[in-house]
């Protein structure tokens, strides 16, 4: 066939080598060895360092399963180059946010890979649980309108399922470690808000059957694996009631502990549990 040949980008050998190490070679058995190779690069050269960081960050170029080993590599690397961790974490978070703002289905795969990577970074102690919860809440609140009419003009259309998937990916990756202490409780609360979000989406469909089956089983599976004893809420109204109930409890406690603060909040009309902390 006479298809015009695509101009092939010729990368410098060093770039090719970095890419080969991370995107092609990296697997369970050679993480240590590749870490040693990567450490040998000239990290004092800003260009080399920047290319390394870029390759480590662009995890959608890897096999999905191997994303965990990039987190492992990074955990080893930050021992010597602390700033690399910061740069990559910042970039991943920005990517997740831009994904929500752009809301381009073309990037769904990439967004999934990024969220997976974030979860793996938690597993390797590169980020803390507070950050994971920030992202979880932002996924179910940022630009979200819980109104069937308005939702069509929002950044998250009622028929778009990608955020449900992202939440499930993140929780499937690292949710198992939110099993004790405050992170356990945080996850319990999050599940209430998450169910409300999920059930809102479901309520926008004409009937139970018209909602994509794959999505509802994915959500229910994530919930049941992490909290097998939790009672699954039935519908959007029940979820709203549940959320309202705990928010009232929160407010009552706040009133008791910090009366002055509550007055200010009442004036500003702030709501509990916002997503990513905008100023």
């Amino acid at each position, binding site marked *: 066939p006479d298809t015009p040949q695509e101009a092939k980008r010729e990368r410098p050998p060093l770039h090719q080598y970095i890419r080969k190490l991370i995107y092609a070679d990296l697997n369970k058995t050679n993480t240590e060895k590749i870490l040693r190779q990567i450490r040998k690069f000239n*990290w004092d050269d800003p260009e080399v360092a920047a290319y390394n960081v870029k390759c480590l960050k662009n995890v959608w170029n890897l096999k999905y399963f191997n994303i965990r080993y990039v987190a492992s590599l990074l955990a080893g690397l930050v021992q010597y180059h602390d700033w*690399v961790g910061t740069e990559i974490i910042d970039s991943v978070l920005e990517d997740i946010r831009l994904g929500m703002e*752009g809301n381009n289905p073309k990037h769904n795969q990439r967004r999934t890979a990024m969220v997976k990577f974030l979860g793996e970074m938690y597993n390797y102690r590169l980020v803390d649980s507070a950050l994971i919860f920030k992202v979880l809440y932002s996924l179910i609140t940022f630009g979200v309108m819980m109104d069937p009419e308005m939702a069509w003009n929002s950044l998250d259309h009622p028929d778009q399922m990608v955020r449900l998937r992202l939440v499930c990916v993140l929780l499937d990756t690292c949710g198992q470690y939110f099993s004790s202490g405050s992170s356990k409780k945080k996850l319990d609360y999050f599940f*209430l808000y998450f169910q409300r979000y999920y059930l809102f989406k479901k309520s926008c469909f004409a009937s139970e059957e018209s909602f994509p089956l794959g999505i509802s089983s994915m959500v229910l599976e994530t919930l049941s694996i992490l909290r097998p004893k939790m009672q699954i*809420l039935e519908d959007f109204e029940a979820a709203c009631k549940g959320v309202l109930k705990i928010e009232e*409890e929160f407010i009552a406690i706040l009133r008791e502990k910090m009366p002055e603060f509550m007055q200010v909040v009442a004036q500003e009309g702030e709501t509990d549990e916002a997503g990513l*902390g*905008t100023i």
Partner: protein
Amino acid sequence: MTAISSKPPDSEKKREKEKKEKNVAPTKIVVRRLPPSMTEEEFLNQVSPIPDHDYIRFVKADYSLGQDVFCRAYINFVHQEDIFIFQEQFDGYVFVDTKGNEYIAIVEFAPNQKVGMQKDGKRKDPK
């Protein structure tokens, strides 16, 4: 609902949250949605003088995203009150690139508050 309401009262969670917020008030901010063609110098020229800060990092645009391409900058301020002045000034500020396109910047607390040691950090990799 039973599983949730049978948990110990949520005062603990709230208290912990308060404590966290009080002890480590966020100081690192991010300026997002800057023009993709912007350079670090141009950025510094336009926002200076930046109040006391101990960390600043300008990130060039990532063209792999196609249409949503922006630069951004992270700044860690030394004084809390400077943050609000800076935000007042630049949140919603319109930056214009060389072609005349307008970009409305967003100033927010960076979700990741860690700053990380600079490249000339103390530990040298023995390799």
